[in-house]
């Protein structure tokens, strides 16, 4: 890195921000600590499981600038998208409401994506902190996804909604506390339009209490250090992030970098939806232009304003991942969005299932920035949230008639890099939700979670492989409405630098055997017990992603059904997509491939076919000589434009007997049936 361009000496800090370096650093961390405190408060005091378990929230502190705009100084992310959206939203909401109208103890609430929100289920709250002269000095904000905000579909993910009128309550910037007293009409509006007033009241109280806690922390800093020092340090914290990002952009060659990506469909029609971006880097600035993107879809997978903010996640991951996120990191970017396109749909457009588009934006931006900065390139992630919303009415003794809902999160995977395998069981860089405790879920909901694990072979091949596809198998004990938040079932994610593509998501209904057992080993189960639900399958019902066809013999023609009915006693299994590989798989150390095989991550077959590693299938030992010659042969056989095969399991046991033989062989026992 060119150290001199943006490096700040202690003298520079004093001159530019009016604070000494040590105090500035102290307060930079003080702001982060204030958000840590808010995070702990919200996590422990909220009610909806999507907040307390899922951690779908964010808590921030912003500086009020002299012109009334705001800059986000610090955030503690639960869900990382808030680290980007709240920078914009705070500005847009306070601009519309009028910062001058807000006094001590006033809180504004808003959930509207056209004011920088995400979808109606995410409530965003804003509280202004005034200095001793009554001037607005800081803002604390928080956001959380609440259990239900009305609309025809419980939980609010109405993929099939054709307009916002079918999604839930839309809240423009509205006062919810006035001098710390609840504004009754706003509370009633929320409580009377939700299916669960209990959760709503609890969550709103938690969100409000969190803002008060944040204000206490910020005031403690002001009391200790004085308002001018604290403001100067806030500007320093912002400037530091900005400098780091600009430094990284400067190290990236100037140029125009572009690519396009497809969402599977919008849940209403089967047409894929294109999002295109060109990133133009000039010096320490960059323009992110979404021109060329498809017009807004009918179904609710599109978004309002938020990609203006969320697009910056790509530069964040590739250029400066390890520094705490704040608004300064967003300063070098200007985002162009065509009105009426997927990335800036127009009212009354529906947007409740924006999530998969977010995951695709993260993948697309990471991919394009990787083009620009190959030393820090990251292969494609799974590009899907990898979760399922489940809800309905309980029928268990003593709980009859009780509505329930929850998120079953299996997680996706990240792509590999030049130095590391991609992580498995992880959401997109734009999200960061946590899976529920199974034993609590089974108390709270009429569900049995039979499995949460990875699928063998399903990770983009490479010297470094991508993270794995993960799956959940769950049984409904009462009729349940299932809304998968899934994508990446049609178009495989790519590898990088010779790495191979990742597998795609798919789903099936699963049957137990006569003993009531769900058979599964390494993620595989007998085909005779699977009924294809969505994804790519061949004519025999094998989930073949190379030679199969998407939608072939599947019950659904979308990865995004809304409120699919899973009847009591039925089981569903959903697989997320995996991450792309990095580098030539023939270069992955043979011992590492052996480790993968011995730990049931990779089959002997894939080890040979893609990695060129020869392993004895019964003793699971490495044949080094055979590996060397196999690798030589495979390398020689490659033609122009060679790409490793899409990595997913090719051999599925067809019958129970074949499955048993496979399992026994893995145990090292002699087999009765040749597999």
């Amino acid at each position, binding site marked *: 890195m060119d150290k001199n361009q943006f490096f700040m000496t202690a003298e520079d800090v004093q001159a530019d921000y009016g604070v000494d370096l040590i105090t500035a650093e102290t307060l930079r961390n003080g702001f982060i600590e204030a958000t840590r405190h808010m995070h702990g408060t919200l996590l422990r005091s909220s009610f909806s499981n999507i907040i307390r378990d899922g951690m779908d929230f964010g808590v921030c502190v912003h500086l009020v600038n002299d012109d009334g*705009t*705001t*800059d986000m100084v610090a955030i503690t992310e639960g869900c990382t998208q808030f680290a980007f959206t709240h*920078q*914009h939203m705070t*500005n*847009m909401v306070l*601009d*519309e*409401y*009028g910062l001058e*109208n*807000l*006094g001590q103890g*006033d809180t504004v609430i808003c959930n509207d994506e*056209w004011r*920088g929100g995400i979808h109606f289920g995410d409530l965003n709250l804003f509280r202004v902190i005034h200095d001793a002269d009554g001037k607005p000095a800081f803002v604390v904000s928080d956001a959380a996804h609440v259990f239900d905000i009305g609309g025809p579909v419980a939980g609010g993910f109405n993929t099939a909604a054709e307009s916002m009128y079918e999604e839930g309550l839309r809240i*423009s910037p509205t*006062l919810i506390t*006035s001098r710390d007293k609840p504004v009754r009409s706003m509370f009633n509006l929320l409580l009377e339009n939700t299916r669960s007033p209990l959760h709503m009241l609890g969550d709103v109280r938690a969100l409000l209490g969190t803002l008060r806690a944040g204000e206490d922390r910020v005031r403690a800093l002001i009391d200790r250090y004085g308002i001018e020092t604290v403001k100067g340090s806030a500007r320093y914290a912002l400037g530091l992030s900005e400098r780091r990002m600009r430094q990284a952009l400067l190290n990236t060659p100037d140029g125009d970098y572009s690519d396009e990506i497809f969402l599977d469909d919008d849940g209403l029609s089967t047409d894929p939806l*294109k999002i*295109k971006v060109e990133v*133009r880097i*000039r*010096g320490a*600035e*960059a*323009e992110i*232009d*979404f*021109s*060329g*993107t*498809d*017009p*807004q879809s*009918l179904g609710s997978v599109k978004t*309002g*304003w938020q*990609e*203006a*903010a969320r697009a910056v996640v790509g530069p964040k991951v590739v250029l400066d991942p390890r520094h705490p996120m704040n*608004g300064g990191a*967003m*300063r070098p*970017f*200007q*985002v*162009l*969005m*065509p*009105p*009426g*396109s997927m990335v*800036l749909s*127009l*009212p*009354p*457009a529906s947007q409740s299932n924006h999530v998969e588009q977010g995951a695709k934006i993260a993948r697309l931006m990471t991919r394009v920035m990787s083009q620009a900065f190959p030393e820090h390139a990251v292969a494609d992630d799974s590009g899907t949230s990898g979760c399922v919303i489940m809800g309905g009415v309980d029928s268990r003794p003593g709980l009859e008639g009780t509505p329930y809902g929850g998120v079953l999160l299996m997680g996706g995977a990240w792509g590999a890099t030049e130095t590391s395998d991609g992580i498995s069981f992880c959401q997109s860089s734009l999200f960061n939700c946590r899976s529920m405790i199974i034993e609590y879920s089974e108390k709270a909901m009429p569900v049995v979670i039979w499995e949460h694990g990875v699928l063998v072979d399903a990770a983009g091949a490479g010297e470094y492989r991508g993270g794995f596809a993960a799956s959940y198998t769950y049984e409904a004990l009462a009729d349940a409405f299932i809304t998968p938040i899934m994508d990446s079932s049609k178009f495989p994610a790519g590898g990088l630098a010779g790495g191979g593509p990742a597998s795609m998501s798919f789903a099936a209904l699963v049957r137990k055997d006569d003993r009531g057992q769900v058979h599964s080993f390494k993620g595989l189960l007998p085909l005779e017990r699977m009924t294809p639900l969505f994804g790519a399958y061949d004519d025999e019902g094998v989930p073949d992603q190379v030679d199969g066809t998407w939608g072939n013999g599947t019950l659904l023609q979308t990865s995004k059904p809304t409120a699919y009915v899973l009847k009591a006693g039925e089981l569903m299994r959903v697989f997320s997509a995996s991450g792309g590989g990095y580098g030539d798989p023939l270069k992955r150390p043979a011992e590492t491939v052996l480790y993968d095989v011995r730990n049931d991550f990779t089959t002997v077959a894939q080890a040979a076919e893609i990695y060129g590693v020869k392993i004895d299938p019964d003793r699971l030992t490495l044949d080094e000589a055979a590996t060397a010659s196999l690798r030589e042969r495979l390398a020689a056989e490659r033609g122009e434009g060679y790409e490793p095969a899409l990595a997913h399991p090719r051999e599925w046991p067809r019958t129970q007997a074949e499955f048993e033989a496979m399992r026994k062989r893995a145990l090292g026992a002699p087999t009765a049936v040749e597999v």
Partner: protein
Amino acid sequence: MGINDRMIFLTPGKDEMYVTKTPVEGRTCPECGSDDIARYPIGWVRGPRMVVKCQRCYHSLEVQRPAVEDNWPPFRAATYDWDASPAEGG
């Protein structure tokens, strides 16, 4: 302006969507000297803005709050220009 103009929109019918950059006459970039200057709507770190920008080196000559006729952002609250009532702190 009719109340619906920026609150309810028709679904666009085009195949692909673009952002139009309007050339600006008579201005030169103070950083690199180019006269290839354009004005267009952006998502900026502090929200929706119009930028006057050199298309060669990407120096921003001005970042402006949108005028009403810029129709940016597309959505605009019907009460955007109204005074706050006393109950809202006005």
